């Protein structure tokens, strides 16, 4: 069962175990992890599921065209390890991932 560790700006952690295929964005929304909005439902159209990936146990998928464009529009400035949570799905992008949440998404 893939596991996601969300690290809030105040450094508190929330751990969520998920089914295969569930994204970092969906897991946060459904399980009530504050700090991810995910308004478009995971279509790389709203840039409100921005995360900073600290570690992943497998290589993350390449950043797609839409994701690339959206990462330039995030509320908190993009960093080298910026990704959209909706594009990172359990079992394909990671089995265990640690992501830091930005101060704001909108």
């Amino acid at each position, binding site marked *: 069962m893939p596991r996601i560790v969300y690290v809030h700006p105040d450094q508190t952690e929330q751990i969520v175990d998920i*089914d295969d295929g569930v994204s970092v964005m969906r897991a946060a929304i459904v*399980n*009530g992890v504050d700090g991810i909005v995910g308004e478009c439902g995971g279509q790389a*159209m709203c840039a409100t599921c921005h995360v900073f990936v600290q570690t992943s146990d497998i290589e993350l998928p390449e950043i797609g065209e839409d994701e690339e*464009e959206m990462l330039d529009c995030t509320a908190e400035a993009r960093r080298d390890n910026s990704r959209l949570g909706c594009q990172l799905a359990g079992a394909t992008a990671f089995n265990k991932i640690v992501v830091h949440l930005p101060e704001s998404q909108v």
Partner: protein
Amino acid sequence: MDSRIVTIGAGQAGLTASVSLRESGWTGPITLVGEENHSPYQRPPLSKGYLSGAEGDDTLTLKSDAALERADIAVVLGKQAIAIDRHQQHVILEDGTTVPYDFLILATGSSVRELSIPGNDLEGIHYVRTVGDADELRADFELGGDTVFIGGGFLNLEIAVQAQRVGHVTIAEVGSQILGRVVSQETANALADRHREQGMEILTGVEVAEICGEHGRVAGITLKSGENFPTRRVVVSIGSVARTNLAETAGLEVDRGILVDKNLRTSDPRIFAIGDCAKYPNRYAGIDMRVESVQNAADHGRFLATVLTGACKDGYCSVPWFWSTQGDMKLQIAGISMASDESRIVEQTDTGRLVVERYREGRLVAVETVNAPGPHMKARHALAAGMVSA
């Protein structure tokens, strides 16, 4: 912060308001009442991945039961609210139970506008609003065959892409273009061209006179012109109607929507309305209007939490935005335009990328994009900045 809040309607707006209130430190009881026997869910996948079967019921969930319990939100499902007693300050549910409130939030949404032509009671006519509706259509698709769509709006075009996997698709739109009320002719044409390339038949300026049946089931449709199209099923999406009954019978001000002020408060200071059902002063459109979108529902919910907790500085002013995924096309609209607004194509490529700006009296009011999420985001920022400086 410690008084009782009751929300009627467990969709995107009602759920977001309830959750946001708790996240903002509200300590009083929060109750969410939904008439469907399904935990709060999001509707966009109903016309896309959920309908195709690519996504299951779990992708609809807005909040897990455990998360709702942790947030101490009492969820009452499968019960319709039938009346509001404003003097006693309680809501009466269909089973006779009463739910007392200090503040009441109406998030009753909208319902489909129904066809009123001969044959409208045949089996095989679908309206997609709820998860139950989507289940029925998905089961019908498994029988294969052609589909006629009445109405060329967002919802029907999204569903049409799914219907093409089982048979021929015909769209019958009464207006002169698809998406007539929401996008420019330029954007509508680009979308229609792409759909036609994929084999979709799009008829504009046509009116359906009758749905014809055999043995009680849809067999075809007849246009006013007399032309007949055999079909296995008909999907109808010709607009929606705000669900205002509850508000109206309680004596609140209603005019094709529950009337609210810039803080989403109705004519009763203890009652608010949010989401599809609320008619509010929209700063971007410059008029009182209802907006049906996920963004509007969610932003209303979040905004109302700031009103109730006292954090709100000014009225509601989020930039309206919309999206629609139709096959390989991602349409996004920022702002609200009118048919008479000027259109300027600022980008158009062979690969299907399109950016159209809309102007009214020289001022940018909306930007329509297809497969161009970057310009869409920039447009939202520009529109928001324009509102601040105006």
